């Protein structure tokens, strides 16, 4: 994989195939943990770690695991990594572990990980799979951080725990609640989709009648 390909992979993971904003995967965790940016970062990095590790292992074993049991094996491997991450967090980052709480074990059923395992890692070599895991994980993390930034900023008046606005700002605590999560996520998805459609229009105009899709 040369540098250009890696860059295009990153563009995919961050923007055009962003797991949360475009593929609409992993939304449960995206909505639930984005009350603060710190939580979002913790969650995003955990998911990225699990994604890379599971992609690598599954790619290594892709020719060994028979078709019929592949889903079962993937789940076992993924949950193994998630449990390892959970144990490591409990031991070395207990505050994050406490604030993320139940959502760390729920990484197992985060659709992103199984989707990438099924769609990519089981068909490609180790290094591309690892990079795919990295790019998707980074895209997920960025999506979560953006969502958390908006929610924390307007919902509590803080960013990363630091009060940003002065006393005059009365935070809209609705944004911290689940209702606010849905509303904010919906608005962000709308903006992202609008941007992507404009981009497609521009690309289409540029390509003329060529059938190549930039992705």
């Amino acid at each position, binding site marked *: 994989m040369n540098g250009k*390909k890696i860059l295009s992979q990153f563009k995919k993971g961050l923007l055009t195939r962003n797991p949360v904003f475009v*593929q609409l995967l992993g939304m449960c965790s995206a909505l639930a943990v984005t009350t603060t940016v710190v939580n979002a970062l913790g969650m995003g990095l955990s998911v990225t770690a699990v994604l890379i590790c599971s992609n690598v292992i599954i790619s290594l074993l892709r020719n060994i695991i*028979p078709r019929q049991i592949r889903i079962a094996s993937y789940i*076992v491997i993924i949950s*193994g990594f998630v449990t*390892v991450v959970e144990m490591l967090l409990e031991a070395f980052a207990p505050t994050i572990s406490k604030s993320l709480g139940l959502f760390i074990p729920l990484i197992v059923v985060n*659709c992103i990980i199984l*989707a990438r395992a099924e*769609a990519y890692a089981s*068909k490609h070599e180790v290094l591309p799979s690892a990079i795919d895991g990295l790019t998707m994980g980074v895209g997920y993390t960025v999506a979560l951080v953006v969502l958390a930034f908006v929610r924390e900023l307007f919902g509590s008046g803080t960013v990363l725990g630091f009060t940003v606005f002065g006393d005059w700002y009365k935070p809209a605590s609705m944004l911290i609640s689940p209702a606010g999560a849905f509303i904010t996520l919906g608005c962000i998805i709308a903006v992202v989709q609008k941007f992507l459609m404009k981009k497609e229009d521009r690309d289409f105009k540029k390509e003329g009648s060529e059938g190549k899709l930039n992705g």
Partner: protein
Amino acid sequence: MQNKDNKRVRRPVKKIPSVSTNDTEIKDVDLVEETSEPVIAETPDTLSAVTDEESIEATVIEEITDIPAAEPITADSEEEVGNANIKSVLKTGGVLLIVCAMVTLVLSLVNFLTKDIAAENKKNDRDLAIKEIFPTSTSSSEIETTHGDPINGVYKVMENDTHIGYAVGVVTSGFGGDIEMLVGIGSGGTVSGVKIISMSETPNVGSRVNDSTYLSGYNGKSGALSLKEDIDAISGATISSKAVLDGVNAVLTLELKVDGVTSEDTTTDVDTTEAVTIDVSTPIPPNEGLETVPVTGEVPSLGFDTLYREETVAPPTEKDETSIIDFVTEPDPETSAPDGSETTSSDGDVTEEPVSSDTAPMTDTESPAA
């Protein structure tokens, strides 16, 4: 997505229901659709994410033409089919077994490495919380109890070697979810502090119960408390206030006595001779592996200690440090009714320890305190 003719490459791909498998088993398609539905919804996109643009066609062709049978059933005879079946079952089962075994191995390894640190963290958090209620405490240990909900842990709080109180964890349901608190019971069986560990109440409304000034209103109280009489409710947050009250009441009904003589519990039996699991009501036998083995006092059977204890037992019985003073004023150890003196001064009097370590002779010589 534009549907232009020059995108012919993508059209046949759209018709294939499964993007992610190399064979076209219907079973597998269902599987994929169940587990990762968005993948199907985004069929063209995922495909292009999956493969490089150049190899789209290659993959398409591969998917269309590559239709191997899933099971290796290419045999002609039944017997061969049977053998092949057994073989494939063994293979699949075996691989799954190996995968699970390896994962388990890794997990147990990591658990072994991190388990102690994690437990240590939990204990530190707990100690910190307890320290806020009992500022002079130095250590705490968990006592096994038979209490269920809402109590979720009873901790004996020690200051050096003196038993200064209990911290009881309790969980009640508030307005927006569970409220987890730590209620400290000090000498006299009164509340010595309430700390909210976690809650999810409405900000600025229910969350105002988590205010130290408000919670200090519980200090010194005992008995069955009620809103408005014993403690105000936060205006507009009646449910949250009531939840905190319920939690404190649940702890108060345990009637823990902090003294050196460990307390009496209304619901469990008192086992004075030996206790492997320690009830709150049981006097703590010495040398049970507790962190806080008193300096001098120990096994009651040693004549010397018994003598020593009996000498000193009369004066400060049901009280802790502050009772030294009470000894002077109140010679009768039985009248140790709660008098609201929950703060424990750190006398660290030596005579306290034997008292706290064993109560068997005392309960024999005096009728147990009510």
